[in-house]
């Protein structure tokens, strides 16, 4: 199976089952609602963005930690025989990228709905969040693979990925605060390109290293 087929398959399975999707959706709604109750609509640009990235970080973590959940036991041996590891990682990267992008938009809309948007330039802001969500998903895909190969341990997944998520989250939150206060484009553009670069780097290293991980 090529990586296109594999991506289609995982998207189709997700669409038929929808449990993970509803899980993420409910998580977003509940966490955003709690945040809006606790903050009582007093969030400025700084708090708003910090909150968004914090929620996004945990949402992406829960979404991606189940990436390799179905590839265990017989399915793992079947995949090991018939699917090249490079195809598998590319399909997982794309699938997680799409999924996290979708989740980040939902999260963004919900925060917008519950807390209002105190800043400006929503188009740039959405671009920044989308770049960040894809960046988080690339790092999380490989760490999910590592956690899965070392015995599907959820707390291990958080321990492994949080230090590696700091760069993306830090660049993202700095850029989105600058966008929120309508700073000059030159001031936040390096953060966006920096984030895109970090994403490419982690995707490339993940692609190169995954074949070593995915064997017995």
């Amino acid at each position, binding site marked *: 199976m090529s990586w296109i087929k594999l991506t289609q398959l995982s998207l189709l399975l997700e669409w038929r089952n929808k449990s993970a999707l509803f899980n993420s959706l409910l998580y977003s709604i509940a966490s955003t609602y709690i945040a809006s109750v606790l903050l009582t609509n007093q969030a400025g640009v700084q708090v708003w963005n910090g909150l968004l990235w914090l929620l996004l970080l945990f949402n992406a973590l829960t979404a991606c930690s189940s990436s390799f959940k179905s590839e265990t036991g017989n399915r793992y041996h079947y995949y090991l025989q018939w699917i090249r590891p490079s195809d598998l990682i590319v399909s997982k990267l794309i699938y997680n990228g799409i999924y996290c992008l979708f989740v980040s938009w939902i999260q963004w809309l919900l925060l917008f709905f519950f807390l209002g948007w105190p800043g400006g330039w929503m188009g740039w802001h959405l671009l920044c969040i989308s770049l960040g969500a894809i960046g988080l998903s690339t*790092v999380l895909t*490989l*760490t999910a693979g*590592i956690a899965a*190969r*070392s*015995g599907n*341990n959820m707390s*291990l997944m958080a*321990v*492994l990925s*949080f*230090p*590696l998520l*700091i*760069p993306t989250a*830090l*660049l993202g939150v*700095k850029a989105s605060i600058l966008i929120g206060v309508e700073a000059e484009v030159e001031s936040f553009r*390096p*953060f966006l390109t*920096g984030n895109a*670069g*970090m994403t490419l*780097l*982690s995707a490339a*290293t*993940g692609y190169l*290293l*995954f074949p*070593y*991980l995915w064997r017995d």
Partner: protein
Amino acid sequence: MIKGAWWKLTSAVLLLYGLIAGFSFDVPRLPILNESIRNLYFHVGMWFAMMALFLGSSIYSLRYLRKGAVEDDQKASGAASVGMLFGILGLLTGMLWAKFTWGAFWVNDPKLNGTAISLLVYLAYFVLRQSMDNPTQKARISAVYNLFAFAIMITFIQVLPRLTDSLHPGNGGNPAFSNYDLDSTMRLVFYPIIIGWIGLGYWILDLRQRWKEINTKLDDNE
């Protein structure tokens, strides 16, 4: 590991020279910094040693993935733990320096964030190693994580301080120490002691590795 004792002797001599000269040679008289400028030889030197050891650790991990020798895995984890030791020492000397010049032990600064990330990454690496029992599985999976984390960490440490303002010298428009040290007396101590610290790090790693090998042989004989 490098054969012979010449490099151990060299690093010992350089360190000894650095310790004596570092406390006795003239340093530039600067406001705020004052005599604390001598910390440059220790704080920066330890960070250089840490980075050299982390680089060594990832090279051993890469070699393990390509060849699969158990020694390479032992050396990778050994280099990471000695690197952590130097990292913690560098952090402590840096915090002391920050307290006297910036007024606080810890500030929110890109350079310090890089520090926090690199220490957290290697702590996670040790947690990952402890979570597995099968030695080959442990070696392979932790080698993959080591390389992945090292690539992200190095890029972040190199990229972020150039994007934002930093209190730390050499970043965000702040002059590095080469600008203060006009008559180059500090270089006479700084460069030798860096080589000395790196040599000391690899010496500790060498001893650790030999101790591990003896232990394996003793276990085999029982």
